[in-house]
């Protein structure tokens, strides 16, 4: 999977959940990825360079490691 595309998608999810406040948005973004992303998508974003991830999205992706 193209990491750039996945990073774009994760950032977009995070931006749309950001109005909930940072902590809630991080949890909601992580849950969204768990609920709707195929395992190879989750694996690919975990393996990608997170430099382009915005803060909420980056924190959410980190939560996926658990």
């Amino acid at each position, binding site marked *: *999977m*193209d990491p750039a595309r996945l990073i774009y*998608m994760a950032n*977009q999810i995070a*931006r749309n959940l*950001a109005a*909930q406040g940072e902590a809630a948005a991080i949890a909601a973004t992580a849950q969204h990825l768990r*609920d709707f992303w195929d395992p*190879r*998508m989750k694996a690919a974003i975990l393996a990608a360079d997170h430099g382009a991830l915005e803060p909420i999205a980056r924190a959410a992706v980190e939560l996926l490691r658990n």
Partner: protein
Amino acid sequence: MGYERQADFGTPAVQSDEAVTLRIDGRDVTVPAGTSVMRAAAECGGAIPSLCATDSVKAFGSCRMCLVEIEGRRGTPASCTTPVEPGMVVQTQTPLLQKLRKGVMELYISDHPLDCLTCSANNDCELQDTAAEVGLRDVRYGYAGESHLGLPTDSSNPYFDFDPSKCIACSRCVRACDEVQGTFALTIEGRGFDSKISAGQSGDDFLSSECVSCGACVQACPTATLQEKAVAEIGKPERAVITTCAYCGVGCTFRAEMRGEQLVRMVPWKDGKANRGHSCVKGRFAWGYAHHQDRILDPMIRESTDEPWRVVSWDEALAYTAARLSAIKDEYGARALGGITSSRCTNEETFLVQKLVRAGFGSNNVDTCARVCHSPTGYGLKTTFGTSAGTQDFDSVMAADVILVIGANPTDAHPVFASRMKRRLRQGAKLIVIDPRRIDLVRSPHVQAAHHLPLQPGTNVAVLTAMAHVIVSEGLANEEFIRARCDWDEYQDWARFVSDARHSPEVLEAVTRVPAAELRGAARLYATGGNGAIYYGLGVTEHSQGSSTVMAIANLAMATGNIGRPGVGVNPLRGQNNVQGACDMGSFPHELSGYRHISDTAARSLFEQDWGVTLDAEPGLRIPNMLDAALDGSFRAIYIQGEDILQSDPNTHHVAAGLKAMDVVIVHDLFLNETANYAHVFLPGSTFLEKNGTFTNAERRIQLVRKVMEPANGLEDWQVTQELARAMGLDWNYSHPSEIMDEIARLTPTFAGVSFERLDREGSLQWPVNDKAPNGSPIMHVDGFVRGPDGKGKGKFVVTDYVPTDERTGPRFPLLLTTGRILSQYNVGAQTRRTGNTVWHDEDLLEIHPTDAENRGLKTGDWVRLASRTGETTLRAEVTERVAPGVVYTTFHHPATQANVVTTEFSDWATNCPEYKVTAVQVAPSNGPTEWQESYASWSEKSRRIAPGPAE
């Protein structure tokens, strides 16, 4: 069922709590107050002769045939216009009445051709019947006087003829056009003896008039004046079968009127609860594709898409397909395989395809066309209300006081429901339209929107947040409802958010381009105008904030207490005939049937036990993810039933590249569609006329689809899927779709009470149908929202912040393209392009505002190049003020245009529903097709070659 006309009670049914008893011809009958004597007579088994009365339109009292005598009353009143009264004593047949009727009938027949034996309505003609009923034996006036005989027939409509020489000027067609359809295309021209039916202005024929070819006039005509061409060609039907239309999500039921296995005509079924006896040009007439020469009836395979197709037997095709799929699964794993279910197929067929993917392929890589239309509805309404469907039945609109239409064009895309809506608007309900285009509803005969908010495409959330700002900040929220029915803390968070000054209409006007005062007026009207009902379509969902917009709509409805009773609600107008059903049946990669997440162990184990397999607990790939994964080699085979993703999905180049990268593409369809150009296996499909099953419409109404002819390809689609499953080693043994529905009911709580036997008996059921709602659920969330374990939860307010799309206009691409549909064509046009409907629309056109056109030196009819950052195509321009300056619009019905070459891969943040409604483009004069169009046409022609069979 043998052939007989549908029952006609002469005048419409009346709803009243008061009952009236009267005596007609010695029989006592009790009917609701306000009922006509004519209808009362029909309800107690009588039949008063009549010509100008039919129960789809109001009484008119012009033909003087339905006269009766009433004890204690002078004269002979018309029974159609006389309401019943308590104790009334009516005689419908007396010597006086007989004489009067016969005299009137003589006048009618003196100006009517006596060609009954060669007339297309022979033995199915109300004039003929009435002549028989009144005992007409002679016409004293002869036929030599002035008459209308010999007037030329208007054959301009592709589906019906208008023969004015047979017209009795009963005006039923005019009234049907006005009252049932709401188009007001017909009129009576002239007076007295010169009265003639006219479509539009003098000089117009039916085709050039405002007529939308819904067929209401044809159905209402008592003679052969307005008659289906097919009846004239074939003859009177000999049997009728009730079935459900396979076009849009309204789900009209029809009588398929047959001779043998030949379909003569489709006539809307008066008892159908979705359409109430009405139809549109597609369902009524555009079924010729079923027998079109392009239809493929034999399975075909090929190793490579460079090769011509090779016609093979079903056994060879299925064995080849199963072997290829199994080999890929062995080498690359189950997650390399997937499928797409069809929203045009039945619930049972859709359920089997997702079952094949989950239980046979072993992955959850299953998706459906809702991905590109209403997947945000699923996400948004499930999050806020608890379930992924609209809240009302269609009848509910008749109790609405304020109708808010956002991002929908019902008169084109859901015409039969639009007629109901227009009827309510003519009764006085107020209308708010939120749409970048001035759709027909904004102003049409006897309908005018109180507010039209022509927003900048992509700013739905900003507009709805501004409306919420007005409602909350002006104290218009229904706090009693919110405290009782919603989570109060979540409401307060939301109310604080929308009340912020940055969300006021005045501040957001710069973004939305909607005048603040107009927006405030619309918000006040919705909040205070009585029952407020919201209807929305793909102009809501097909945006980067589609899911947010759905939730913003739900927020508005909850904030104003417009949920849980007739006349209110949130109503997604679903696009395809069974897109609601396809979603219900577990077509999404993260959900089992009934919207239960695949990670829900309890739900998953139900299926595992029933199917005898272990299911993958992780969500699968969505369609765009499948295409992405194909390009990296991790997704290699797809089974596509009844869906043309190449033409319907965004960024055609990307779709083509994804399909090209796969090892095996299996297309199961009626025609070699555009996707089939990239396929290795073609499995011929069957039409809705050739199968049994069920469709579920936009109001959650499950209705039977009944087979009226044998499948021309030999197998119904569920049988094809079953045979493929068996070829892959699955032990499936369904002998009828009813057995599949029994399995669905067993595994899906919302369908627990559904069976074919019950649907056959009751006509339709609206899910949920279970212990809590044994007779179904016309209206949802009546006592509580279906959230939480007890199904009586609190509504959830969700803060929806406006996040602008990343698709931006700029110097290179200064205009915004939005796409949509028109009345006569349907989706990618695979069906309607193969019917007479092409007479109305045989190419996609680009609507452009006069200012933008003038700046580019364009006029209507000019070829233009439409280019975006993604691609470009050419089509012809139509200069119109329907679109605002800066906005252009086109349809996607024709593969020669391939409008989706231009659309981008931006999509809804929550569901990946494509952002079809916002693409930055440039428009310029053009001399001809683009390089892509030329190369695609050449590739398409090459790809559709079929190798000649061996000489016999």
